[in-house]
């Protein structure tokens, strides 16, 4: 089955299951609104929804950019500074495994509901796959090719440009498919805990006001954003590695 058909089938299935659930589950519209009702909310509250979406996107993209900067610095630095990977690994492992709720609570009491704690959460949730894959890709570089470059007196930059980076690129691109979508999820969760704006905040409002339609509307938007992020990464990755399919 082609990718396109699989996604189409998924979309149709979700719509059918949703409609069947509305018809047969017996749940009140308050908790399970119909797709039409959710569509109405999306339209009627488009201004708030757009504002929330932009706020979430801003947090996600900024956090994602920072995560990339940190992951690239650590991974590339570890190639040239031998102790860096050994030094950073325990930190990475500990930070990755701190319970999310504990981290959010700590950030609330230390930094309040500003942008910074939200960014920290986004960075922490999405930088690990980037770093892990970059490390793996750089280590997978062809040693024979590096030896060849050395016998040609290739500089460190040339070895990086012609051997290490091309080796790491497919791994890095694969990590983006996970990390980019995770950054959006991370931004929403961070907003859920720490913000008075964004899709996460709309979800909190929907919960406290028993507005299932708003929760579904925000969920729908976040799904579209995540899917869009995934699609952009996939398309970019396929473009940059098109030689593999030549």
């Amino acid at each position, binding site marked *: 089955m082609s990718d396109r058909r699989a996604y189409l089938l998924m979309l149709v299935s979700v719509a059918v299951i949703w409609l069947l659930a509305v018809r047969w589950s017996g749940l009140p519209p308050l908790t399970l609104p119909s797709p039409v009702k959710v569509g109405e909310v999306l339209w009627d509250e488009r201004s708030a929804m757009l504002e929330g979406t932009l706020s979430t996107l801003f947090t996600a993209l900024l956090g994602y950019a920072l995560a990339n900067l940190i992951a690239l610095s650590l991974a590339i630095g570890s190639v040239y500074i031998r102790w860096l990977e050994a030094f950073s690994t325990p930190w990475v492992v500990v930070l990755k495994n701190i319970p999310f709720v504990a981290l959010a609570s700590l950030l609330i009491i230390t930094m309040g509901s500003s942008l910074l704690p939200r960014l920290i959460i986004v960075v922490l949730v999405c930088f690990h796959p980037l770093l892990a894959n970059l490390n793996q890709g750089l280590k997978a570089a*062809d040693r*024979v*090719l590096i*030896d*060849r*470059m*050395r*016998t*040609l*007196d*290739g500089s460190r930059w*040339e070895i990086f440009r*012609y*051997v290490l980076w*091309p080796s790491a690129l497919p791994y890095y691109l694969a990590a983006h498919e996970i990390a980019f979508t995770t950054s959006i999820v991370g931004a929403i969760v961070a907003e859920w805990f720490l913000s008075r704006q964004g899709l996460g905040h709309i979800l909190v409002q929907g919960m406290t006001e028993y507005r299932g339609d708003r929760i579904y509307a925000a969920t729908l938007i976040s799904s579209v954003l995540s899917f869009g992020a995934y699609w952009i990464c996939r398309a970019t990755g396929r473009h940059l*590695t098109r*030689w*593999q399919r*030549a």
Partner: protein
Amino acid sequence: MTDPAVRLKQVSKRFKAGVDILTGIDLAVAPGELVALVGASGCGKTTLLRMAAGLEEPSEGSVEVLGRSPAQACALRQVGVAFQRAALVPSRTALENVQLTLAITRRTDGLDPSQLLRDFGLGEHLHAYPHQLSGGMQQRVNIAAALVHQPQILLLDEPLGALDEITRESMTEWLAGVLARTRPTTLLVTHSVEEAVVLADRVVILSRYPGRIAHDIPIHLPRPRDIWGKPSAEFQETVRTVRGHLHAVLRATGI
């Protein structure tokens, strides 16, 4: 007498675990000469070649390439190396891989990459990626990339070792033609006695545990040396002699 292009003086190599790989190696390769190194696996052939390429340091003794350290010779872009596995950038075409050598060495007096690949029988595959080429074709690109900047020293580490028998035979003949035309000083590591005798001016047999030069046999056969058609009696006798020495060395080291 002309100074040797490659000279190893009392070279020994000991790995960190205390294992002696090579000991007391004295070898001089004259300019334009092709020396083949043969011996059992683990005798240190590749280590010797890597020392000549500046990729390994000797534990004792000295290695000189063109009267300098190997690293300095590499810095002058006078060394070309082709390993057993073709070292090609997978995301670059055959032509781009050969051009890469010129880009890195910044040699303006190098050969024309397109013409070189055409001469190597790859005119139809200039824009093919490595994964689209057969093993033999990849190795041709690999050797073209090692030759394109016209190095004075060529180091070949079993360049045909990963190929099947038929491809290997035709590639040996092809390589002999290429080396006859370009005539760099060449150190060739090989497991094949026939390949060594076809290509080399001298065959050096290494013993092992640790590796020493057991025999240094000059090959005085006329060129071109046709072995796949009708090998001459002289050629067959030379192969027998080299093989006899090699087997004697292997028996002496318990193989």
